[in-house]
């Protein structure tokens, strides 16, 4: 049996000692190529979970392994390098840098990873074509619609072929049609690029685009109940 892409065991995160843990004993695995939607009520710890997996927050207990590598022992530099090389992020508010062209925005992860310039140009052109923005290379973000900006963010999240993509409400600011297009694109390209990912969402429609959808209550992932 192949090793899990992401393995989480006994994860605990508590912000205050006198309050219940936000995440309490969570365990799950994510297989390579698997795209999982995580739903849950506001405040159950979905974003905390993403921050812990991304190495931007530290758990009080438990283990997180990415491709078998334990995150707990890594310092901030090592975690940063891990994010740079192995992770991609898509946010609700896009967070496309307004002062960079679409091409430069997408190229950022490659530049940070020291990829040669010639290779960057090719890979950026390819990924932009994949997300349907082949002609937007030199445009500025302010010239794009919301859906287009989120496509840029997806391209940026995938251009360096990360092992893990973390998407936090990526369609929260989009109309239903654009949202469906973006989610399908995200799922398709994550699989095509060989990685896996977690999609945090409140939308059942969005969750339906994933390989599997789970409900998170702070303790465990449970299969999403119908309805």
């Amino acid at each position, binding site marked *: 049996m192949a090793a899990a892409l992401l393995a989480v065991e006994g994860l605990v995160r508590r912000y205050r000692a006198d309050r219940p843990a936000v995440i309490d004993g969570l365990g799950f695995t994510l297989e390579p190529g698997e795209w999982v939607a995580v739903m849950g009520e506001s405040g159950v710890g979905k974003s905390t979970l993403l921050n812990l997996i991304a190495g931007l927050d530290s758990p009080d207990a438990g283990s997180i392994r990415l491709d078998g590598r334990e995150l707990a022992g890594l310092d901030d530099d090592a975690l940063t390098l891990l994010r740079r090389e192995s992770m991609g992020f898509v*946010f*609700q*508010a896009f967070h496309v*840098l*307004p002062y*960079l062209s679409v091409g430069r925005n997408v190229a950022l992860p490659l*530049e940070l990873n020291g990829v040669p*310039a010639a290779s960057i140009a090719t890979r950026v052109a390819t990924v932009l074509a994949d997300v349907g923005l082949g002609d937007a290379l030199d445009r500025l973000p302010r010239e794009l619609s*919301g859906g287009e900006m989120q496509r840029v963010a997806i391209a940026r999240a995938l251009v360096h072929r990360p092992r893990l993509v973390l998407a936090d409400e990526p369609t929260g600011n989009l109309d239903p049609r654009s949202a469906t297009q973006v989610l399908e694109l995200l799922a398709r390209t994550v699989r095509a690029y060989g990685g896996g990912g977690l999609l945090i969402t409140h939308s059942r429609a969005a969750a339906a685009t994933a390989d599997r959808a789970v409900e998170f209550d702070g303790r465990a992932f449970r299969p999403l109940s119908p309805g």
Partner: protein
Amino acid sequence: MVSATLRVAFAVFAAQVRDRPLRLLVSIGAIAVGVALAAAVHLVNESALAEFSRATRELSGSADLVVRGTRAGFDEALYPQLAKLDGVAVASPVLAREAPLVGGGSLPLEGVDPLAAAAIRPALYGELAGLYVALQEPDALVLSARAARELGVRQGGTVAVQGPAGARTLRVVAVLPEGATGRRIGYMDVGSLQWFAAGLGQLSRIDLRLRSGVDPARYATTLRLPSGVDALTPDVEETRASNLTRAYRVNLDMLALVALLTGAFLVYATQALAVMRRRRQLALLRALGVRATEVRVAVIVEGALTGALGGLAGTALGWMIAVLTLRLLGGDLGSGLLQASTVAVTARPVVLVAFVLLGVFVAVAGAWMPARHAATIAPARALKAGDDEAIPGPVARLPLAGVLLAAGAGAAFLPPMHGLPLGGYASIALLLAGGVLLVPAFVGVALAHAGAPRAPIAGLVLARLRGAIAQSAVSLAAIVVSFSLMVAMATMVHSFRDSFERWLGEVLPADVYLRLAPGADTWDLGPAEGAALAALPGVARVELRRTLPVSLAREQPPVTLIARPLGGEAGGLPVIARAASLDASLPRAYVSEALRDLYGVVPGGSVTVPVGGKPVRFAVAGLWRDYARSTGSIVVDLLDFERLSGTRRYTEGSVWLAPGADGEAVRAAVAARLGGGEALQVTTTGTLRARALEAFDRAFAITYAIEAVAVGIGLLGVVLAFAVQALARRAEFGMLRHLGLRRREVLGMLAGEGAFMAAVGVVYGLLLGLGLSVVLVHVVNRQSFHWTLDYVVPIGSLGIVATALVAAAAVTAGLTGRIATSDAVVRAVREDW
């Protein structure tokens, strides 16, 4: 009537201020510091002049006219002539002398006729009239209460003073009550003082009370007075003092306003950045129904309130600084231009209110443009998710900038107005305004030439800056203004100091100098002393000179007449222009640049100077550079002067050493040989140069202090701009951290932006400042002080300040980034910005 929507806007603004009070406090602080400097300088100047005016009036009492010659005095024969005139009710003769005290220090002495004087100013001289009999004794002295207190003597005690004939003990026959006069002074009978101070037949002034109905100013013009003697109303006396210090005062006022102007740019920068940061909230207000004009009014009112608070705090601070300054530096701010002793801060309430309003005006001016921008924000777009801060493109104001720069260059050629370089100031203001408008263009050019670095962080820095040129230009405005003005002032002061130092080398060719102490009127040198000095061991040569103040025009301060051996050429004078041809029948004179400017005397022409009580015409052989006397000076040959005046008395001398002689030993020998105590100053060239430069630096210390504050405000502007931007970019930094940028890389990115922008601002400020310095050196300085300077740029010190500024900007930008990149900001990516 404030509309409901405007009230809502104000309420939202007030809530924002409560939420982020630091930004408001910084703006208030900037205005306060600027107003404080302007108020302090103005209050010090006004208070010093008021004190001078009070002292002048106390001196002249209720005299309608004061007939005054030079300090050396005039023939007392004038007294009976004036006293007999029909229009004159009372004439009071006065001889004023500064007497060196045995044991150090000096005491001003005034010789009066107690009965005549009492008729002019009963409050003071009435006391003396009562002592008429006692004062008839030749050694009788009446002291003011302050003089008695400071000298530690009482009635019946003695005061030992140095006279030309040696030390002499005066008996204190009375001490005046405290209320009689605030001055530190001693009174004698005029005849006694004439005899004691070798002033027989001499008077310093005659106070006149005119008959009722006689107009003093008109009557003054009818009096037939000897050359060099004027009849002045007390007002004219004050005008002379005011003229003497006006250029210096106006320059300091302008400098203080520079700090205030920098504060205005800081308000502009903070308001502009605040509008950018709050554009969502402003757009929301617009969407809720607040009109564009109401948004604009709200931003301006916010600026006005900032200005009012800053103005109030600044005026209070300025008052405190003025009190401290007057205590530490005196009323002339260390320049040595005014001799007013104890000065208390005085100001009319209207002046204080004016400074508060100045703060409001400056803040409103700073908020005006951001308010316009706030009103033009398109609500729909600003409220759209993912629409980042609207960063307007580079503002193309090249035509306006060109017009302002051309007008600024033209204004530099205007002549002085009312004796002030108003054209020069206008030129600086216009060049500065034009220069600031060109900042975005300059930043654009600098960024275009910055290339495409391979390192991703450097690439991000440049990309960010290229994408926000207007925003960067806004944050640079304060530093560009303050640094350019600092460069201009530093270049002017350095040019002045450099020229002054070189000039000292030219005018001080000998090894040892001797001169009468300023105010030491009871002692001078004669040919016998000159011969005795020449015979001293180690002395190769002695040259004696005579300097005396002469009056060439009624309302102008006296000019200095210097009689010295000129030899065939100009005798080592730093001559900068010579006459092509001369009237050989007239004695020669060299005039200073100030004399040329103030009296229109040019080489090749002639100048009439009172010598020995007679007007004498001199042919002007050349123009010499004189940094010691901004009111003008005339150098004539000593032999001509002795012949024309019939006197052979000297006030200064130079001693050249024989080979191998020790300067200090010769100095001591000269001082011992002449005696004279405090009345005579004997110094080596080295000491004299050091003292002169020390006095120069003291005079300009206040300008350095004001410059430093202005640059500090400018740097504060940059820091604030970076802090505001860093906070506004928290989500961006959070995203970059997600992408894999280490925290130190994000901080490095911010520091890089800070360093790059500061470097651009400093380079631009340097270029602009050098342009302004040309106007300061060749126009403002020239028209204020009437002397030319060699233009010298202080490359070393400017380089150090520039480097320090860039480093400070980089460090502070990095530090402000620490707040924006704290762990909490990784969550900022979730904020709906």
